[in-house]
């Protein structure tokens, strides 16, 4: 059992805004093993994108990492300066963003986008670099790679642009890819193509993927494990099979019960009452207490720690003590 590739330890990230300090992450902890796909799920405002950006050291100003550690292969990324982080980005960690239209530079050719990554991190000659770019385009399933190499992003459909992004993320051979809502902006049939591609590449190259998404269906189909984020903390971490069969944390249960299902008829959905906290308040207790049907006084006053709930499951809920998971 080798050491995990990525360990995030008690990460706190905050942003000032017009009305005060937003506590975007309030102590996020998670681990990612080599070659594993971890789904990081949550709704708007839960902090999932911030988590991804923090790992890359790209927290937008004036936000900052307040405390916590991010260990990549044992090395603490929070202790590195910008120069060292830049060497890591692309080389050790690849990133795929949500909207390829805004992530690809419209004035560079597709080939140039990928070559930028190759030239920066791998020291190959021009011909070798171009060859590698071509190979990457083939491996991401782009038809007519030669032509696309010379072409521009606006000439491609959304799905193909996303493939170019994947090629860029893979270009320098990273061990970890952070994919932030990679298929939210594309249609469902294209999404299926992209996810299949990601899984295929992941298996072939043994890459670990941190898949950030709000779509639980995508998680079910692509991830080995899932971490549920609520108001800046991980509330449940579990292998997917067990998670979907028996979610433990009340928030996870609420989420799954409020989703319409394709293969089950239901008369009414059960929404989670209330709203996600805004992030401005300092919540001494469990952030979910206000919306939880099992909340006790203790929940309002103390933040539950992560309890082990099975071989590979962790749940941040006081129910763990009574339920004997």
């Amino acid at each position, binding site marked *: 059992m080798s050491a995990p590739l990525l360990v995030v330890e008690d990460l706190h990230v905050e942003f000032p805004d017009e009305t005060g300090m937003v506590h975007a992450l309030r102590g996020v902890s998670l681990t990612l093993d080599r070659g594993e796909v971890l789904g990081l799920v949550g*709704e*708007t405002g839960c902090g999932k994108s911030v988590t991804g950006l923090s790992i890359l050291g790209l927290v937008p100003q004036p936000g900052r990492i307040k405390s916590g550690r991010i260990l990549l292969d044992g090395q603490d990324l929070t202790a590195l300066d910008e120069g060292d982080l830049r060497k890591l980005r692309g080389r050790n960690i690849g990133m795929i963003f949500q909207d390829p239209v805004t992530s690809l530079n419209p004035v560079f050719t597709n080939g140039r986008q990928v070559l930028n990554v190759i030239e920066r991190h791998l020291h190959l000659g021009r011909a070798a670099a171009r060859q590698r770019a071509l190979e990457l385009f083939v491996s991401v399933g782009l038809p007519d790679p030669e032509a696309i190499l010379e072409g521009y992003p606006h000439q491609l*459909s959304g*799905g*193909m642009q996303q493939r170019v992004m994947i090629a860029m993320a893979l270009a320098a051979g990273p061990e970890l890819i952070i994919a932030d809502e990679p298929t939210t902006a594309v*249609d*469902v*049939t*294209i*999404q*299926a*193509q992209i996810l*299949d591609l990601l899984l295929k590449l992941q298996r072939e190259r043994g890459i670990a993927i941190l898949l950030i998404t*709000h*779509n*639980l*269906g*995508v998680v*079910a*189909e692509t991830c080995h494990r899932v971490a549920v984020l609520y108001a800046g903390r991980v509330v449940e971490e579990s292998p*997917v*099979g067990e998670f*979907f069969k028996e979610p433990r944390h009340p928030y996870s249960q*609420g*989420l*799954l019960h*409020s*989703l*319409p*299902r*394709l*293969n089950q008829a*239901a008369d*009414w*959905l*059960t*929404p*989670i009452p209330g*709203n*996600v906290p805004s992030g401005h308040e300092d919540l001494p207790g469990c952030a979910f207490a206000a919306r939880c049907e099992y909340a006790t006084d203790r929940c309002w006053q103390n933040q539950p720690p992560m309890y082990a709930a099975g071989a590979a499951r962790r749940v941040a809920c006081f129910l763990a003590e009574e339920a004997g998971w």
Partner: protein
Amino acid sequence: MTAAAQPLVQVRDLSVFYESGGGFLGGSTRRVRALHNVDLDIPAHQTLGLVGESGCGKTTLGRALLRLVKPAGGQVTIDGVEVLALSGAALRALRREMQIIFQNPIASLSPRLRVRDVVAEPLQTHTPLRGQPLNDRVLELLCMVGMDESHMDRFPHALSGGQAQRVAIARALALNPKFLVLDEPTSALDVSVQAQILNLLQQLQGQFNLTYLLISHDLAVVQYISQRLAVMYLGEIVEEGPPRAIFGEPRHPYTQALLSATPVLDPHLARRRIILSGVVPSAADPPSGCPFHTRCPQVMEQCREVNPPPTQIDADHWASCHLLTK
């Protein structure tokens, strides 16, 4: 539950074209075929779910029914009234009967109007209600959608997505319409809010005998609330039927691919994934024959030349595919 119930909305041969590109100094304008000879019946007091991916024309269809875009041809009959022939005062009167809920709730509310004014507008336009009676009716409508007096003076940007959508629904119901087009009403909302809005829409449908056209790309949402389903591809309806038939036994290859691509909340479910090759062809230059033939895994020679007509599969289930007529 089938077409035996008299349809409230009948669409025949509806076509819509867009001009895109070009400009004053010329340059090529392209004629985009958004809807192509669409036939559709929406049964009264029920929900018809319209699914498809981007560019299939589902949003255009909803807007065409409301006369927000100008069709190039066809007829639309709502409650016996020929909608496309109306204009002026008659058209304005008809607008009381049909309303639309948009995909982006906050953007569908005028940014400088307070909630009370947003909901009051239809009443001010069509009724003589003013002053206190108007106020009372606005409050009544807001309560119907689960909001209260404290929201009345807010501006749209101060509302959450779910609240804004509720206001939009209140506005839509102000004049007691019969027919509501719901254009991706929950796509922009969080999962937990989605459930609240879907429940609300269902409840209101029962309460006021409404007929819905629900447009969505999310098959699970559509299945949950619809009694009938229509699948669109490149401006045409390719399959139509009750949800259990469409999901249980999809007959059109596109429907099959769409279903297989939709993620399911069960990691252990073994699925045969149908991966479609290529991308959706441009609606400015649609393929000959069957619009799906360029990507169909079961394409035949015939498909390139002849557009298959609708073939009856069951009493209430039909699809347009040559495979069915073999």
